[in-house]
């Protein structure tokens, strides 16, 4: 398994995905070796939860930009993998470890499976504006071309990989992500009055503060609601933060908004418990694992009807959906939910129930089934190592 992030080095959902998947695969008897990144603060090699983790440190080389940094990381992953001969299949995640996966595939003549969690075109709103973005897009294309099978986490992503990368639909397998309630630590002890007045209900946003996650829509909705009894708490950080702070001032709602930045998981857990509603206003969302976390912790959710979120939430049953990009539609949904405790209770109860299928056990089962299919096809073919 190749991944640019793995605990303790976590950037986003990809690292958590690879962590849970490799752990459960290992518990099912699949021998998993994860090749990943270290900045020198984690051991170069260790066994954890039955998974062998091998880390390389790319800071031995200097780079002018992120793409070169990623290529340098892949160079070191390739070199480190040369000593690993006892594996049947390579599984790589996103363009970030595509080149080392492709090199390994050709040199060792072993089948390559790729999980594409998101695409550059999707992340950039459908257009590529410079050579960096086009470079990444072409590597994603190459990965989908070289992979024996491509895994996507939602029907939306199956369509995107097929449409944007020209990958034949029958080469793509949909395996939705899992949710691990046990991975959340016990909630921290928080004083609610540190976050909101007694008469204010908390509307919680959790996610990176970047355009594709739509945090500005929640501010616009807050302004349209003109309600004094709501507090909008933003958990997460990102390049949009200064803009959002300015926007809250311009909209005259800065006293109703609280930007917390990154918080530890135990604080996040406690905030979910304090929240009346959690909002995920993404403009682009391949899956939306964060929404599953909110659902699992019993918070009623409002999501934009986009990507994976649109597939997870059934409007009025396990959450509310609003029109993507429409702050008016979002404001309406918030109004509907915060004034209706019974609806909140029903949505939260149904949400927990609907999480039943989103387990890492199910993800591992479907992944093993795919591995077996790929290995069966590989064994019956003539493309084999001769060295």
């Amino acid at each position: 398994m190749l991944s640019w992030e793995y605990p303790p080095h976590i950037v986003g959902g990809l690292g958590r995905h690879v962590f849970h998947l490799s752990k459960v695969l290992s518990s099912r008897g699949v021998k998993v070796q994860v090749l990943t990144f270290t900045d020198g603060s984690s051991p170069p090699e260790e066994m954890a939860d039955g998974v062998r983790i091998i880390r390389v440190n790319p800071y031995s080389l200097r780079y002018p930009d992120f793409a070169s940094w990623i290529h340098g990381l892949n160079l070191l992953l390739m070199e480190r993998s040369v000593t690993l001969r006892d594996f049947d299949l390579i599984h790589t995640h996103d363009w970030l470890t595509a080149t080392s996966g492709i090199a390994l595939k050709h040199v060792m003549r072993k089948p390559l499976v790729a999980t594409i969690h998101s695409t550059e075109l999707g992340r950039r709103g459908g257009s590529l504006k410079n050579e960096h973005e086009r470079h990444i897009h072409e590597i994603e294309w190459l990965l989908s071309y070289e992979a024996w099978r491509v895994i996507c986490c939602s029907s939306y992503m199956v369509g995107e990989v097929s449409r944007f990368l020209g990958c034949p639909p029958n080469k793509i397998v949909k395996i939705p992500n899992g949710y691990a309630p046990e991975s959340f630590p016990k909630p921290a002890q928080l004083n609610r009055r540190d976050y909101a007045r007694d008469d204010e209900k908390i509307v919680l946003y959790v996610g990176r503060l970047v355009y594709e996650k739509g945090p500005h829509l929640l501010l616009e909705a807050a302004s349209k609601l003109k309600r004094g009894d709501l507090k909008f708490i933003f958990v997460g950080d990102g390049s949009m933060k200064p803009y959002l702070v300015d926007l809250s001032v311009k909209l005259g709602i800065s006293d109703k908004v609280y930007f917390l930045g990154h918080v530890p998981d135990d604080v996040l857990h406690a905030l979910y418990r304090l929240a009346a509603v959690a909002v995920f206003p993404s403009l682009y969302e391949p899956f939306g694992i964060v929404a599953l976390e909110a659902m699992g912790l019993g918070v009623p959710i409002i999501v934009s009807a986009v990507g994976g979120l649109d597939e997870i939430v059934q409007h009025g049953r396990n959450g509310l959906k609003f029109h993507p990009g429409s702050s008016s539609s979002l404001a309406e949904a918030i109004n509907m939910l915060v004034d209706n405790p019974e609806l909140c209770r029903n949505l939260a109860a149904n949400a927990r129930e609907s999480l039943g299928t989103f387990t890492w056990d199910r993800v591992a089962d479907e992944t093993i089934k795919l591995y077996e299919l790929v290995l069966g096809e590989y064994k019956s073919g003539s493309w084999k190592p001769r060295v």
Partner: protein
Amino acid sequence: MKPIIHITWEYPPFVVGDLSKRLSDTLPRIASRYPTVLVVRGDSDGVFEADGMKIYKAGPSVRTHPHILTYAHLLNLDLIRAAANALHDNGGASLIHSHDWISSIASAYVSSYVGCPLLMSVYTTEITRSGSLKSLLSLGIFDLERHCFQRAERLFVQDTMMREHLTKEYGIDRGRVVLGNDPETILETYRRFLG
């Protein structure tokens, strides 16, 4: 005998600069003494025979690059694909010989996979090309050169100035630098490794 695999980013008819000419003077003479396979960046993937060598060409899989360093990494991925075919088609390699830094990633990787000696011909370096390391891009290329040069068992250079340069700037042990990049010197060095 398993072949010697040469890896380069240019060889006629795939000409970029002077390296093609040098190699078209050198490699046929080597090929007349040892079974020789050449891996080269080409217009598309394929295999053909020329100048006494079996030539594996690799077409570019990614065409948009922000700069030379990203180009070099993806070029090497293409060269690895062709070199892997060369390895598996010919039962391995007795020695890998890389020409210039730009194909050195593929050469170092493939030789460490096979477990055979890696030799490199060094014609220029980032410092000799750019005068000094003034940008992060130059530093990135320099680091990559050093990383790959240090994996070579022998480095062929044209003159004593380049030998001193590799020793001083790249930390290469003087005993690993071979003076001369001509067929006779190269063949003599091969004999020491291959018997």
